[in-house]
């Protein structure tokens, strides 16, 4: 238990002002070098789970119960200043749309530097190039000096991953990191995740609706249906028939 990076107990999220339930009683844990897949249909609360872990829920939602422990530190009890240090420094997130996750007004390098500066790093050009190389970018200087609209989706996704790991977080939350990329690039980006996981000892939460990705890359899987955790098991046991109804339907839909 103590070696867990992240422990979430009974996390519930509701809309404010007595609104509906978004997530109910989610519990999970994550160790270093472990990949936890989160699957579910559209609107099942996958992305909200990622944002709740970063404590960046939209203003209309609030966490109504549960605790999020990062290395035994309760995020719910953290001050805003401490949270800022933890975001990027402990947990960071990679988004679905690389093209819109960078501000079109600044170069990619400038935005990676911004993240580094936010964590008190002096952010030299060398460090940025290093990070991009680590993310598998072949001509890092050009990418760093480019504006987002000058780069392809695959390159931007690598740059975003470079930014996400720039402040040596323990956990990377990847929110559908490959769904806007073509299949070939998808495979390479996933390989990159796996390499970084081993190299940096990251725990990865892989949010996706693609069961194929989960089967290939995840160790454990958490199945969400309308905000309720219907299954939480090792990937290997996904195919056994004692799984929840919803999981079975997901698996069947995939084989169509």
């Amino acid at each position, binding site marked *: 238990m103590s070696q867990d990076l992240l422990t979430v107990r009974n996390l519930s999220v509701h809309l404010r002002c007595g609104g509906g339930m978004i997530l109910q009683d989610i519990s999970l844990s994550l160790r270093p070098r472990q990949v936890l897949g989160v699957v579910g249909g559209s609107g099942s609360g996958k992305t909200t789970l990622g944002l709740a872990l*970063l404590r*960046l829920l939209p*203003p209309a939602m609030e966490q109504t119960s549960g605790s999020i422990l990062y290395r035994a530190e309760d995020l719910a009890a953290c001050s805003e200043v401490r*949270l*800022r*240090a*933890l*975001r*990027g*420094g402990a947990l*960071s*997130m990679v*988004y*679905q*749309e690389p*093209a*819109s*996750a*960078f*501000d*079109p*007004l*600044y170069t990619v390098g400038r*935005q990676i530097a*911004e*993240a580094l500066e*936010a*964590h008190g790093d002096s952010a030299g050009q060398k460090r940025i190039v290093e990070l991009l190389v680590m993310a598998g970018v072949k001509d890092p200087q050009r990418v760093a000096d480019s504006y*987002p*609209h000058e780069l392809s989706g695959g390159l931007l996704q690598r740059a*975003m991953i470079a*930014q*996400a790991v*720039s*402040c040596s977080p323990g956990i990377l939350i990847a929110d559908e990191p490959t769904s*806007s990329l073509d299949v070939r690039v998808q495979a390479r980006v996933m390989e990159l995740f796996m390499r970084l996981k081993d190299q940096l000892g990251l725990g990865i939460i892989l949010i996706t609706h693609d069961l194929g990705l989960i089967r290939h890359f995840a160790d454990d899987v958490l199945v969400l249906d309308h905000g309720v955790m219907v299954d939480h098991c090792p990937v290997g046991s996904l195919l056994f028939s004692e799984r929840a109804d919803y999981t079975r339907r997901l698996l069947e839909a995939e084989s169509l």
Partner: protein
Amino acid sequence: MNQASANSDCVAAVTSRASELFFLRRPGVLASLWALGFLYAAALLAEFVAPYSFVTEARAYSYAPPSKIHVVHEGRLHRPFVYDVQAAFDANHRRYYVEDRTRPFALEIFGRGEPYRLLGLFSGDRHLLTVREPARLFLLGADARGRDIFSRLVHGGRISLTIGLAGVALSFFIGLLVGGAAGYFGGWIDSALMRLCEMVMMVPGFYLLLALRAAVPDNFTSVQVYGAIVIILSFISWAGLARVIRGMSLSLRERDYVLAARSMGVSDLRIIVTHILPHTLSYSLAAVMLSIPGYILGESALSLIGLGIQDPYASWGNMLSEAMSLVKVTFAPWLLWPAVFICVTVACFNIIGDALRDVLDPDKAAGERS
């Protein structure tokens, strides 16, 4: 939101780059830029451009009309010159001026005149255009105390033209920060800041101007009065901008890159300043241009009713206060020149502002092209 907005951002960047040149080709823009350029240059170099200082009085030339510039002296061609004038009274005891046609005084470019210190730094005594004593050059006539109206207009430009820039700088700083913070944070911060804006906007502008001016001690020096007017004018006009910027920030904060920056632990102030406010620039740049005339008119209005810049210091507004009586205006219509300068300046800023707004608004530009 995603690919579509990224694309539209790119398109906006490209079209705005292409229309930078297009902007200059709009009717009146180039002329307005030139006109403003001349006015600001003249105000900057006022001591040199004006033949006299703004306090130099020549009581013998009270309400002297604009000097006539002649080229023929005693039947022979002469370089451009003026005659000295002398006051006389007609049968109805009305004053008129007669030219003393015996001696021509040539217009001298870079001629010697009153000594001055340009901007308080460089001393000199050469003026752009002047005539030798005892004649006086009144390009646009003289006021009651025989002060040259052109000289006072040029010096007054320093106040009337810069008060808009200073006021805009201050109120935009406040408006952008308040609007950005209100839109970005939302919730009670938003409500509190917007109610504050509404309180400021609720009071009719001119009465608020008067009330605030009444709160300023009347033993201020002219520099302090200038500062007070800037602050008062900014205080009145930041609220409108803050409301619009707040609306834009409300939608900008939903952009993915704002969330991405937040999830990397970038501070709120930094996100507002680097990722929110620059995206409102297309609006605020045009708004800056369109709001400068308001400051110029505000200063003029205050000075006109005697609450702004005080005589002997010149501003276009307090020069106009002399023109408030119909009798004086019919007798010396050249007292209205400051009004002409105000109109021209305000029109120029509006033309440039309109053109900027059209150019920077991608939707409108696209509509015009199709």
